């Protein structure tokens, strides 16, 4: 039966859900549990990855160094992974240091149409002998054909696998099947899928990805992640095992890890609230959720209007400043009425 590699970004995507306030102690607790459960790859960091702590997307409680060093201590069989977006993270300031701390896996990410900004970071990580993957974020915003071309660029730069992210939780299973099949056909390296749960489809979408030939899946404990959360790890493992896929993960221990995560690292378990449904429908990056709620409340505008307007403008991850502009615009319209 097919073996599938699970990547667990609970301590990276989950950081979005707590405005990047995960503490060293929480990293310590969860990495121990993940190691015990035999999760093959554990991703750690600010929600937007390496070097992303900023006013734009949120300042992190702990530095990249503290986050990674804490995780490094506990991960022995599990590999330590980072998310790295050029434009936020530079090689000299961020990537060099992360590699010196001892990360095993580097996932270099860009917006789905901008793969060529990943060339130098991918090449650098390969040179250093790290497992190197290319990640295409907000993948629903590109046509299938373009997505394959961008993934092929990353493969050419040296990526050893390509992961597409449904960063808005916008896909239905058929969308995933179509894209993953095209990628599997167009690439010589394994393909992976990272789901978000805005429309309640994350597990179903992940299974669709497997059926279409994906070899890697991302999932997090209790779905801890931006907005409505990610694919729920312990559910996914249960479903996969029932379908006969192998993951190398111990079911009881991953259930334990998720219980620990719920108790010790998340103030509340992600739910699909009204705002996250609209966020998914409008195709806006899930990482915007906290900012949209805060700024909408402060200026008394309807966050749903904000999402639809952002969707219309086709904003990408990293453009959080546009939330302020859109809210100001809505305030102007309201005051003129």
């Amino acid at each position, binding site marked *: 039966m097919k073996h599938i590699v699970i990547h667990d970004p609970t301590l990276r995507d989950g950081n979005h859900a707590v405005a990047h306030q995960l503490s060293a102690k929480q990293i310590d607790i969860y990495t121990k549990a993940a190691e015990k459960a035999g999760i093959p790859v554990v991703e750690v960091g600010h929600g937007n990855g390496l070097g992303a702590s*900023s*006013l*734009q997307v949120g300042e992190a409680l702990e530095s990249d160094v503290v986050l990674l060093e804490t995780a490094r201590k506990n991960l022995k069989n599990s590999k330590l992974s980072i998310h790295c977006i*050029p*434009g*936020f993270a*530079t*090689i*000299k*300031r961020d990537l060099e240091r992360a590699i010196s701390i001892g990360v095993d896996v580097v996932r270099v990410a860009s*917006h789905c*149409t*901008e793969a*060529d*900004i990943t*060339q*130098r970071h991918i090449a650098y990580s390969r040179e250093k002998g790290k497992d190197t993957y290319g990640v295409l974020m907000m993948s629903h*915003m*590109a046509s299938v054909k373009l997505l394959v071309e961008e993934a092929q660029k990353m493969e050419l730069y040296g990526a050893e696998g390509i992961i597409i992210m449904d960063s808005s939780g916008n896909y239905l299973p058929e969308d995933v099947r179509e894209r993953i099949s095209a990628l599997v056909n167009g690439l010589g390296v394994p393909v992976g899928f990272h789901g978000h749960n805005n429309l309640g489809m994350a597990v179903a979408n992940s299974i669709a990805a497997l059926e279409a030939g994906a070899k890697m899946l991302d999932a997090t404990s209790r779905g801890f992640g931006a907005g409505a959360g990610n694919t729920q790890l312990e559910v996914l493992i249960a479903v996969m095992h029932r379908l006969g896929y192998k993951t190398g993960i111990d079911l009881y221990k991953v259930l334990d890890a998720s219980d620990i995560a719920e108790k010790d690292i998340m103030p509340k378990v992600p739910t699909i609230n009204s705002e996250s449904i609209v966020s998914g429908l409008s195709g806006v990056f899930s990482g915007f959720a906290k900012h949209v709620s*805060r*700024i909408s409340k*402060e200026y008394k505008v309807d966050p749903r209007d904000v999402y639809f307007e952002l969707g219309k*403008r*086709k*904003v*990408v991850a*990293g*453009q959080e*400043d*546009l939330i*302020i*502009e859109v809210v*100001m615009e809505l305030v102007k319209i309201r005051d003129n009425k």
Partner: protein
Amino acid sequence: MKKLKVAILGSGNIGTDLLVKVQRSQYLECSMFIGRNLSSAGMTKAIDLGVRVSDKSINAIIDEPENCDIVFDCTSAKDAIAHWKILEKLGKFVVDLTPAKVGVLCVPAVNLQEAIKHKNVNMVTCGGQASIPIAYVLGKTQKNIEYIEVVSSIASRSAGPATRLNLDEYVDTTEYGIAKFSGVDKTKAILNLNPAQPCIDMQTTIFAKVKEAKMDGLLKEIEKMVAQIKEYVPGYHLLVPPIYENGRIVVMVKALGLGDYLPKYAGNLDIINCAAIAVAEEYSKSKASKK
């Protein structure tokens, strides 16, 4: 008055747009448009305009040093460093549009007169040209800014291959420029490429983290600065006036291009080119007045 002769080194988007701007200048004329490939789009445009072209790269200047007074270097940071070693010996005034930072950093609205006293003037980055003047005003008017951050979003189509490959240098140089001009040590620059169609206009947000913001009179100071920038970048304007939100001052500006060689949305290229032209023209005027 006699126009100073300009060589444009690099025939990509930046170089070609500069050429169109030089053609319009009362103080400058393009004596040579230099690249590596005579069939590139930029070269074709230059040939159409009747400008003398060369595909010999820096050798075109080495062979005929008398043929230019000013060199616009629009190649790459790495090449610009090598070029400067040669151009310095030849006594050229160099306006460097790469993030090489070998010369004095210049944002015309802040330090034009001081900059032209040097022989190599670096135009920082497009995001730097848009954000530094505002960061400078914030640095002057606010006490105890802990940190300044600037975020620029540009249309994917306005970022050519060199820009994409040099993202790290863009970040480094912009951060360095912001720190230097604002006096705030801790800075961060972020660049987003947005592929949306129709293309988005270049837009930059400046955040300043400060415990007690002094908002009185800030808008007026910023408007004054915007007016100064508008003199050389007509499409520059204030998009969101300063607000204090969540412990940070936020200002947003937008730069619309002139639409010379590149479309109007490519305000990121226009702003650095307009600034470069302002430097070269000022240098030309200062030369004329000395004679």
